[in-house]
């Protein structure tokens, strides 16, 4: 502990500490809750109020129907559904690739494995943004433009996921694999009956990273999905920002940030712990 319990009982230290902590808490509330509150307030305020009384804490004449208008006029529901598909597919592909590759490299250990692993890890030196142009051409060649496969498949090529899976499988007791083999388990059964049931923590961490990453990604969906009907909500909002009326746009933003904020509210313990797991020590 930076400050010992004995010291903490000294009045001067205590007063200073408490005031710093309270100021910090106030700051965090302002920075964390403030913008969310202003969004919800803005969403139910008429446009005129947004200009006349931006500081009012409560809307003078609340209009919850703004949500319905934005939902209908801006097509928020459709875009949210698109985002859900993008995130769901990207999650499934990432998990599948990481688990199969990690299993092959860690448990089956073919002789060429280390070259494959090396080639996978090498991609960590090249963020996808710098090969975006050629990635776009490849996606065109394969006829994947405007399909969600153009997001799902490249998302699967995450070296960090493979690294996490392989390292976790490396730490599992090898005797279990040998025993299962002797009992006549097939390789597939070895994966699904022995390895996966023991790997819930790493499956959760990879899932968390996959979902967060694809929910937040912007530049690649912007490039790969040109059909406005198919765009995820983030890309759609960036386009709508120029044309939609202010109050409807804010209502749409409130609806776009509600799902991740709610998920975070419910799973915050696991999310914070999962981040600790993948932190720099990973």
């Amino acid at each position, binding site marked *: 502990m930076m400050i010992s319990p004995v010291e903490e009982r000294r009045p001067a230290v205590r007063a200073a500490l408490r005031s710093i902590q309270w100021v910090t808490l106030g700051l965090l509330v302002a920075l964390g809750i403030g913008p969310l509150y202003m969004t919800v307030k803005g969403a139910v305020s008429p446009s005129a109020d947004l200009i006349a009384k931006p500081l009012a804490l409560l809307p003078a004449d609340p209009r919850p129907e703004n949500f319905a208008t934005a939902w209908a006029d801006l097509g928020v529901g459709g875009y949210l559904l698109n985002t859900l598909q993008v995130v769901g597919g990207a999650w499934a592909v990432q998990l599948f690739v990481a688990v199969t590759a990690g299993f092959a490299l860690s448990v089956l250990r073919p002789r060429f494995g280390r070259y494959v692993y090396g080639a996978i890890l090498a991609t960590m030196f090249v963020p996808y943004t*710098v090969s975006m142009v050629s990635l776009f051409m490849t996606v065109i060649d394969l006829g994947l433009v405007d399909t969600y496969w153009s997001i799902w498949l490249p998302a699967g090529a995450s070296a960090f996921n493979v690294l996490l899976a392989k390292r976790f499988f490396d730490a599992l007791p090898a005797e279990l694999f040998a025993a299962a083999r002797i009992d006549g388990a097939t390789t597939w059964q070895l994966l699904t009956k022995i390895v996966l049931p023991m790997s819930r923590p790493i499956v959760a961490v990879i899932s968390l990273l996959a979902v967060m990453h694809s929910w937040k990604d912007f530049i690649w969906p912007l490039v790969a999905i040109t059909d406005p009907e198919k765009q995820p909500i983030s890309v759609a909002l960036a386009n709508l920002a120029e044309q939609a009326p202010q109050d409807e746009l804010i209502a749409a933003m409130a609806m776009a940030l509600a799902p991740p904020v709610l998920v975070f509210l419910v799973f915050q313990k696991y999310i914070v712990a999962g981040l600790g797991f993948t932190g720099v020590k990973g």
Partner: protein
Amino acid sequence: MIRKNTLTALVFLVPALIVFGAFSWWPIVRGLLISFQSTNLVDPAEWVGPANFTALFTDPLLGVSIRNTLLFVGLALLIGFPAPLVLATVMATVRRAAGLYRFLVYLPVVIPPVVAILLWKWFYDPGHGLFNELFGLVGLGPFPWLDSPGSAMLSLVLQSTWAGMGGAVLIYLAAIVGIPSELYEAAQMDGASIRARIWHITLPQLRPVIGLLLLMQLITTMQVFTEPYVFTGGGPENATLTVLLLIFRYAFQDGAYGQAAALSLLLAIVLGILSAVYLRATRSWSAS
């Protein structure tokens, strides 16, 4: 027997080989090739030698975009780097309601970037935006925020610091909690004040984490795109035109794919060096 095992392993590696092959390895190699080619996506590509690089280096916007990117990286370091460290140090002293602090500090991170940026754009409104109204209460401003070439980049950095701080705070916090308390106790017996302990124990103990987060931040901020794209579109007067935004414009607005690939290659070299340093540092730190 060995043959069969190898074959099975290969089967399990097929998904990875397909996605890495088609969407990572090949695009990396192809990016290298394209930077020496001219292509319009329809006709077959032609070799043009260093023409793309010549075109790139004669574009006055190249220098502008590099300067802007470095300005963003620099400001983000100056503002965004100490903030999480200070916050984490304060949060480490909190006993009750520590979870509440952690929740609040991470909340901005879960807001989708485009939504967060559009929100801040609304707050930055020079007319009746939240920020100018708030500053107006204490007699300051109005500030032009995004509308002036002088303050636009700073406005971008402030938002991006707010949006990204939570992750760094949690990592620092975990590291601070992990510092052995004997170190503090010994220092205290030698009469070290609280401030001296933070300065001579906490900070030195955090040095590896600080180094890693510094590199991670450099790598991320060098690729800044969403903020300038959504906030300002690169304006006003190209004051927020960053390297990645310029690559995007070359490729997807001008159709100058070769030139875009050439600039990507330059960015890749810089990022590759930083990543190599980062991975080296991670390894030496995990080993210690």
